[in-house]
């Protein structure tokens, strides 16, 4: 078979960000369809698309060449900061070999280094320094001579033929240079119909509409992939240009499988080896954990794990992670490993994780096996905020600025953003765009009726109108295309030597941080090790609360030594009194806890794991709860499954159980079972799933499992495609859930203060946290200029009780510097004194007055507002008028509204309490009253909407939580009512709902049949509800 007469050397995918309209995978697929055996990717100023490009090429048998179009720095300066830097054009660089690829990464890193996104400009001096191993394609005749000088016989003139006479003129100029010609397609989209999307993306790039873009758009749709024969025909008069595509292709031998990544070395003392060091630290830690001894079982497991680690050559990895955790400990920073690492006794001994895998029977192979063929994945939870940054910077310092980087996060177009962007491009009016965007569902659940076309039609817009048709088409095409790269929240990659020779680095917005151009999946595919250093709000809370408890409650809390199975804690959990408690505070968790009735730690592990899409869709939740309540007998699909499932009453809940099922009844090895799990992972492929399922079924047949049982097992196993928790992960989280529940139960005031200081986190707003605490008897004191610090504080009251004083940080619009000045400058004699010595702006003063923060200056709110509005600034700074206030003082209702408006929280009566007399007259029950009403009774209740949730697994049901002065109540809205009242349900802040009450096993819901908005106050006054995807 003759080889194709042409190789495409110049393509730009959507990772050229607004210069290409196809994903790299789509380019490869189209190339394969057209008969290309080789394809090059040359995205602008980056290699973000390269791993996917390579991976898809490997799957389809297309050889992939890696390159980039590099923008060169031009003369002159930018006139304004936001202007693009000057450029003298661009060239395409293709990697010949590993040296060339590394040089390309260095060049791109240097190009990005001086700028925040999205620019890169490469200095010609850098090209000179890093030219080795690269082929250069030149389109601009002015660059011919300099590139010839730098790249010598690896420099070529790029000849285009897109049926454009201006191009032909330029081609002639290039052919007149002494660079050998090479034909390229400068491909921007896989097929001709991609031109429309490319035009839209060009408009976004230039910030114009289609109607006004004019010649900013390409003149035709010729920049798509063509077959080699078609290209050969197009360039038949330039045989040398065709031949050179083959020539260059042969020179470019580099493949991404040859990246040459090496894990960093761990610094050892003289005479030490990695295995020795790891064993030494493991045994030391195991003794500490085991109360001074290592049990035979633990010894055996340690040996097994260390042997596996040895075989895989991963000692260095474990030691590096140990080093990071050790650094956390040394700085007093809470750190806890999560995920499958908790399956490892070595990790437990090293202090990386907090769960004893032997005690919980966790499967090591879930974490590490020879069949995995990839690095293990250890995620460390750290307190969110500055403390985590300390550790990130430690890693940067330890491995050098070019040895570590954050992984990227590819932000792609979602429906709403796509509607907005494409609407702008089509020239729709802002009002219309807003309206269309609001029609697009934000919720996770999507059915046929939610398809964009239907959503728009339901909103009263005709989808057949030409401009709307174009909009729908463009929105459909642009979705899932990358929009830009941002930084992943916690993923870090480290390398031996220079990371910027493996993947280009870009500066992050935060100082002293760099980002690699690949996301964590790309890094994993390229075999680059990643450690996730994640910020967990609850860890920050725990770190904050411990010193508060020490100081104000006189108790020294050691999280590792909390009383296990504390009765008060479990009683609180059983009542679903869990606002603020990690992992078990959601609406769904609160609906399960009274039925679950947790009494011990393992119950909590199950509780954390059971409210997940996997068990929910697999219909495992109800059977488990029924069996737990004794209403259903415990049974097993097969007797061999009993040892695996007995601790979960015959119902598979954890991922490890899934793996063990495959191993037990289908004969999978540990590694094969792990492969099964990966096949059902988030980005599963249909072919892979089918192959694994077939293997599973075959294995079960061999083991004599009957047909019905095989079906049931496969159904249970495939339910985990929607992600169930690994048991180790659930256990790690259950530790934190227990700790937070315990501290809430015993030290609620300190817990609240810590939660408020670490916000945002958790499920509920500060307003709800405060009201919940108040219902538990915690005194919460309003912001006061004479008492409050910037953060919330514990304040001893005259009766000896601790109260929580709200911090100045919750005063909307108050600068932190101003708040800190208030802290240091008080006490204040008057509002004038406050204004002057704290140097506050007038609007800050007004805010403080309005929220009652000047009460201890002897002023009611409106009187304070009256006074501060007369505050002089400048030469007469601090002077105020003493004329008595003619303003009527705020009513209690107005005070509540002012609180919400000014702080998002009220320490006074709940908003609904002001409406209670009227609500009583209408027969509306409070949340607490619902508990005493029988199941099935028709009820009315009302409250502020604090949660709205429409999960993908709930088949269109909407779940809401309403809050009134007595607590919270839950409501369920059926899909048809949701459709009829969609706008109201999505926007109302205060609702009255009506319908039959469901009161079973301590779980209470109103099944809504009718609803009414009670928005007496504007929506803006109320704290925002937590609306779920």
């Amino acid at each position: 078979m003759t080889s194709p007469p042409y190789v495409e050397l110049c393509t730009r995918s959507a990772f050229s960000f607004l210069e290409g309209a196809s994903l790299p995978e789509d380019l490869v697929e189209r190339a394969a369809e057209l008969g290309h055996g080789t394809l090059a990717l040359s995205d602008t100023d980056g290699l973000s698309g390269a791993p996917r490009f390579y991976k898809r090429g490997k799957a389809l048998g297309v050889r992939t060449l890696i390159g980039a179009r590099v923008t060169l720095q031009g003369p002159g300066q930018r006139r304004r900061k936001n202007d693009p830097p000057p450029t003298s054009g661009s060239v395409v660089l293709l990697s010949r070999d590993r040296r060339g690829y590394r040089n390309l990464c260095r060049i791109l890193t240097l190009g990005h280094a001086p700028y925040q996104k999205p620019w890169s400009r490469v200095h010609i001096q850098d090209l000179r320094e890093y030219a080795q191993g690269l082929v250069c394609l030149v389109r601009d005749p002015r660059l011919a001579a300099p590139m010839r000088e730098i790249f010598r016989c690896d420099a070529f003139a790029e000849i285009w033929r897109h049926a454009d006479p201006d191009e032909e003129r330029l081609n002639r100029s290039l052919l007149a240079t002494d660079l050998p010609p090479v034909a390229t397609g400068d491909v921007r989209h896989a097929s001709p119909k991609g031109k429309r999307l490319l035009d839209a993306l060009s408009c976004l790039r230039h910030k114009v509409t289609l109607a006004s873009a004019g010649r900013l758009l390409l003149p035709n749709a010729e920049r798509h992939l063509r077959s080699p024969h078609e290209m050969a025909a197009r360039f038949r008069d330039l045989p040398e240009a065709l031949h050179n595509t083959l020539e260059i292709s042969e020179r470019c031998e580099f493949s991404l499988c040859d990246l040459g990544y090496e894990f960093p070395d761990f610094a050892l003392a003289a005479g030490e080896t990695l295995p020795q060091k790891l064993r030494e630290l493991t045994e030391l830690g195991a003794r500490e954990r085991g109360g001074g001894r290592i049990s035979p079982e633990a010894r055996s497991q340690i040996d097994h794990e260390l042997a596996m680690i040895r075989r895989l050559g991963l000692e260095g990895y474990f030691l590096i992670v140990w080093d990071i955790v050790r650094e956390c400990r040394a700085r007093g920073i809470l750190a806890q490993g999560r995920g499958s690492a908790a399956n490892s006794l070595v990790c437990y001994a090293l202090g990386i994780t907090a769960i004893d895998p032997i005690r919980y029977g966790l499967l090591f192979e879930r974490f590490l096996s020879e069949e995995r063929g990839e690095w293990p994945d250890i995620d460390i939870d750290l307190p969110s905020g500055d403390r985590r940054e300390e550790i990130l910077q430690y890693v940067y310092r330890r491995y050098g600025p070019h040895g570590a980087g954050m992984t990227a996060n590819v932000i792609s177009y979602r429906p709403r953003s796509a509607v907005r962007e494409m609407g702008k491009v089509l020239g729709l009016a802002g009002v219309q765009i807003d309206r269309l965007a609001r029609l697009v569902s934000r919720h996770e659940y999507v059915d046929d009726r939610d398809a964009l076309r239907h959503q728009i039609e339901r909103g009263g817009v005709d989808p057949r109108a030409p401009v709307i048709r174009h909009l729908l088409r463009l929105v459909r095409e642009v979705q899932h295309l990358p929009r830009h790269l941002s930084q992943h929240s916690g993923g870090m990659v480290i390398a031996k030597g220079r990371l910027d020779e493996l993947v280009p680095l870009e500066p992050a917005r935060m100082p002293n941080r760099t980002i690699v151009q690949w996301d964590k999946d790309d890094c994993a595919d390229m075999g680059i090790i990643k450690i996730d250093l994640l910020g967990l709000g609850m860890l920050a809370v725990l770190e904050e609360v411990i010193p508060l408890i020490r100081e104000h409650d006189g108790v020294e809390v050691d999280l590792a030594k909390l009383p296990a199975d504390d009765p008060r804690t479990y009683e609180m959990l059983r009542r679903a009194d869990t606002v603020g408690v990690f992992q078990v505070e959601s609406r769904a968790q609160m609906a399960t806890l009274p039925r679950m009735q947790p009494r011990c730690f393992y119950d909590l592990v199950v509780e954390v794991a059971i409210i997940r899409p996997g068990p929910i869709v697999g219909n495992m939740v109800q059977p488990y709860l029924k069996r737990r309540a004794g209403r259903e007998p415990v049974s097993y699909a097969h007797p061999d499954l009993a040892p695996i499932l007995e601790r979960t009453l015959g119902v598979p809940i954890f991922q490890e159980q899934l793996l063990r099922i495959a191993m037990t009844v289908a004969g999978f090895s540990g590694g094969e079972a792990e492969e099964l799990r990966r096949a059902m992972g988030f980005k599963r492929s249909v072919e892979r799933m089918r192959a694994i399922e077939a293997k599973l079924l075959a294995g079960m047949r061999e083991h004599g499992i009957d047909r019905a049982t095989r079906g049931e097992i496969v159904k249970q196993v495939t339910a985990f495609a929607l992600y169930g928790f690994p048991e180790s992960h659930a256990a790690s989280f259950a530790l934190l859930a227990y700790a937070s529940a315990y501290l809430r139960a015993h030290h609620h005031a300190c817990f609240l203060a810590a939660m408020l200081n670490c916000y945002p986190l958790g499920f509920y707003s500060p307003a709800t946290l405060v009201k919940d605490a108040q219902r538990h008897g915690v005194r919460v004191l309003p912001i006061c200029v004479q008492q409050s610090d910037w953060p919330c504080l514990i304040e001893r009251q005259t009766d000896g009780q601790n109260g929580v004083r709200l911090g100045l940080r919750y005063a909307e619009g108050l600068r932190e510097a101003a708040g800190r000045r208030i802290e240091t400058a008080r006490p204040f004699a008057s509002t004038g004194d406050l204004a002057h010595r704290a140097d506050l702006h007038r609007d800050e003063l007004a805010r403080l007055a309005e929220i009652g923060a000047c009460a201890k200056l002897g002023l009611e709110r409106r009187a304070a507002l009256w006074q501060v509005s007369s505050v002089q600034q400048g030469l007469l700074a601090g002077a105020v008028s003493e004329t008595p206030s003619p303003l009527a003082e705020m009513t209690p209702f107005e005070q509540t509204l002012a609180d919400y408006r000014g702080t998002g929280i009220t320490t006074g009566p709940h908003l609904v309490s002001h409406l209670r007399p009227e609500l009583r007259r209408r027969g509306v029950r409070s949340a607490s009253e619902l508990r005493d009403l029988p199941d099935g009774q028709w009820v009315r209740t009302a409250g502020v909407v604090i949660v709205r949730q429409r999960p993908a697994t709930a088949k269109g049901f909407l779940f809401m939580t309403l809050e009134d002065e007595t607590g919270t109540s839950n409501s369920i809205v059926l899909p048809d009512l949701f459709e009829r009242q969609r706008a109201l349900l999505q926007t109302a802040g205060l609702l009255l709902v009506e319908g039959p009450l469901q009161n079973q096993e301590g779980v209470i819901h109103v099944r809504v049949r009718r609803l009414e908005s009670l928005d007496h106050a504007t929506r803006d006054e109320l704290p925002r509800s937590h609306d779920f995807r």
Partner: protein
Amino acid sequence: MDRFACLYVPDLPLATALRNEPELRHRALAIVDGPTIVAGWLQGLTVAQAEAVRSDLVVRALSLEGIHSAQEALIDVAISVTPRVEESETGTIFLDLAGTGAIFPSERGLLGALEKRLAEVGLEGVRMGIGPTCTVAWLAARWQHGGQIVSSHGTRGFLDPLPLDLLDPPEETFDLLTRWGIRTLGELRRIPASSLGSRLGEPTVWLARRARGQDLRPFQPKSPKLRFEEGVQIGFPVGDLERLAFFLRGVVDRLTRRLRLRGLAVRELLLELLLESGQNFARTVKTGAPTTEAPVLVSLLRLALEKDPPPEGVERIRVVAVPGGVEPSQLDLFLPPLPAPAELAVAVARLEALCGPGKVGAPSVEDSHRPEAKGLNSFAAGPRVLPKSAAFSGPTMALRAVRPPEQIRAYGAEGPPVKIEFSDHRRFQVLQHAGPWRLFGEWWGESCFARDYFDVELGDGGVYRIYRNLDNGRWFLDGIYD
């Protein structure tokens, strides 16, 4: 005791349209200015978007003349009751009712008469109010559906409960006062003015005064309108334009003399001809620049009539001059002398009469890949900065564009043609060709194009540019190389 009335039209553009077409009263009516709806249904959307939402939408263009006429009609009604009328903002008129008691024994009766007269001039839905000051009357007209008569001693009782936003305060002031708990005019009134001024500035003091019903300035009745109108009753029908011009000359001459006395010039002429059948024939002629040169004005009128002659003989001529200030023009020392603006306006008018409306102007290149895309701007004489010429690189071929492109026939299989036949049936072999050059664009609108262009040398020795429309396969001659 002072008494004032206020006539208030809540939505004048809409009222104007309904005045012209009362049958649209119960329809979904939108008033557009350019592409956007500015009044009526679905404000803020473009017409296309609004029609996508409401297919039975009726659209009318914003008519400034109509609004002006409606305003004038409002004034006419007011003047029919009292000569002391003040025109406030568009759509709001104040009347000083002093002396009207002799004609209208009760104020309610006065309102009734006003309502009737407003209906006669086609203005419905006008809100009215009466009070001891213009401000009180204004608030009385705007509160709810209007029709309030507020007595002098009942002013405070009427004003106090009114909401603050009825005074149209600036948003920031409104927000701040609301936070102070001030929601009604009464609450605002109770704040000492000096305290308000020192805290919120002078505009809030004025707001407080209005909250008390006080006027911010004295009533200023409208002066009799300066109307420059001249006419002539010919007495017999004149159909000949030359004879008509004779009469026009006299009329225009008288007009321009009156204007010169006032230091004014003609910006626009409204020509009204009474035809022999009794019908009116009206035309508006703009002058380009205000002028008092009678011959120029007569020429413009003549050209307008030549372009669009009256269908019958004319029996009466009336010309109304819309005045403007005389604008001196400054010559530039370094540029060639420019034509006088009035003469230029005449020349352009002559060309428009020849070529048709919208076909005379300054050409502009449209930013588009479509070769025939062009724009036409208003022609304005003035110094123009010419682009710097590129360095001369030797003789090049010029392409004489054929506009509109001429349909031709081309023979040959897919690909470049081998023979061309022009519209005059001349046929030539294609000796050489270059291309295809492909163009595809504007797919989002009605002018979508997809074409393949070829440069062809034909057997007649000429070199031409032709193209095939890829949508329908037709061939066109685009230009001739020179």
